[in-house]
């Protein structure tokens, strides 16, 4: 793992009305790191990902991608987050990718077009280069026979693999995954987790919100336990699974007994 910091979040806070979903989240992610985020429902895990991927605007704190500020707190700490200009903000999309729980593939595009078109839109190279890269990704993900299929013709596991290929085709620095297997049955979950393990071996930087504790333990360099909008505990998988914190123990115990 290199020391290059891809993402710096300091004192991130976010409320929806009276509901303070994120209170004070600080997080650095280094190149090649795999970070798993676990925690009960409603703890703010998804909101954290949505703020990081600019689907929501955070209220307070700062965030930087590869040293480039997205928003800065005026007081340098937990104060109101001041975002950079809109035109500059759009360029930040190159630093990250997001895989959704329910895939959100484009239903009117074939598998290949789903992977190719975003890269074309972003001017990632010539059409030939982009197609070759997309096909290489799809082949690697076991979808070589599915170039011309439409999302509605695929299993959930296949759809999720396409959506991971779609995100990686843009060569993002960090890949965020928001409960990537929650919409899948156990068999299909296993097939997607296998792929994610391969990506972890390739040292693709990932931040994964998941309820699959065994998977999190196996692939991640670091696990964060989030509850009530705060990072309650973080550490290596071994540290977390042997945590003395009662809440963490309860949560892990509950999920593992399933």
């Amino acid at each position, binding site marked *: 793992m290199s020391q290059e910091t891809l993402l710096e979040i300091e004192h991130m806070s976010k409320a929806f009305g009276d509901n303070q979903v994120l209170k004070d989240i600080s997080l650095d992610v280094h190149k090649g790191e795999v970070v798993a985020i676990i925690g009960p429902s409603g703890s703010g895990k998804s909101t954290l990902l949505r703020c990081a*991927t*600019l*689907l929501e605007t955070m209220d307070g704190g700062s965030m930087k991608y590869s040293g480039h500020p997205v928003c800065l707190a005026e007081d340098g700490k937990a104060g109101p987050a001041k975002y950079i200009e809109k035109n500059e903000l*759009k360029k930040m*999309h*190159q630093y*990250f*990718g*997001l895989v*959704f729980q*329910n895939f*959100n*593939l*484009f*239903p*009117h595009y074939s598998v290949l077009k789903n992977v190719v*078109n*975003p890269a074309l*839109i*972003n001017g990632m190279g010539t059409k030939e280069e982009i197609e070759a890269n997309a096909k290489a990704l799809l082949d690697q993900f076991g979808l070589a026979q599915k170039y011309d299929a*439409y*999302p*509605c013709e695929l299993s959930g596991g296949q759809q999720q693999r396409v959506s991971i290929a*779609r*995100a990686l085709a*843009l060569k993002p620095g960090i890949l965020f995954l928001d409960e990537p297997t929650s919409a899948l049955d156990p068999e299909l979950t296993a097939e997607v987790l296998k792929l994610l393990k391969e990506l972890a071996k390739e040292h693709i930087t990932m931040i994964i919100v998941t309820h699959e504790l065994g998977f999190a333990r196996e692939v991640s360099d670091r696990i964060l336990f989030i509850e009530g909008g705060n990072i309650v505990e973080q550490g290596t998988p071994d540290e977390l699974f042997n945590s003395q914190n009662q809440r963490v123990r309860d949560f892990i115990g509950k999920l593992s007994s399933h």
Partner: protein
Amino acid sequence: MDLQTTLIQLGQGLWVSFEIFALTLLFALPLGMVVAFGRMSSNKIISTLTKIYISIMRGTPLMLQLIVVYFGPWYMFRMRISDSYRFIAVIIAFSLNYAAYFAEIYRGGIESIPKGQYEAAQVLGYSKWQTFWHIILPQVIKRVLPSVTNEIITLVKDTSLAFAIALAEMFTVAKQISAASSTIVPLMIAGLYYYLFNLVVSWGMEQIEKHYRYYKI
């Protein structure tokens, strides 16, 4: 009047009906999209004005709207109504009326597209316009086709309302011949023509729907 002359005269009327039909679609289909955007605008003034517009267009008879558009310039500005304005008035009234209906259909279609499609496009670096053009619009078209087909079939029959301002489309012609020769045969023939017209329209729309059947939403 013999049958052959009747058929020819009705045929000429049918051509006028077809012109109303085609020009109305040409203007109302895109105009409906503009109105739909106005209706969904976050600007309160624009969305309220559009809402009132749609409400009036849908809440009053098209026949009355025709009369207002046709006679309005004279009543309001004392402008002389030229003979060629008759046809133009029909196209204006029909386009404004149908745009309101199409707008509501489009709005329903646009609002039915899951939020996740916008979010995926945004994260993948699509601009707002690219998202609409590449991702949303194609799916909206597929979704609204059955409702649009309904409106288009109604439009074929509604062209007969141009009768209200005595434009010589098929129904007007049929009514004149019928009155002159004291028989309803010309009206029956006109009915047959409308029916055949709609058979062609339905077939055409079915082909378009088939074209979009390659994927499911």
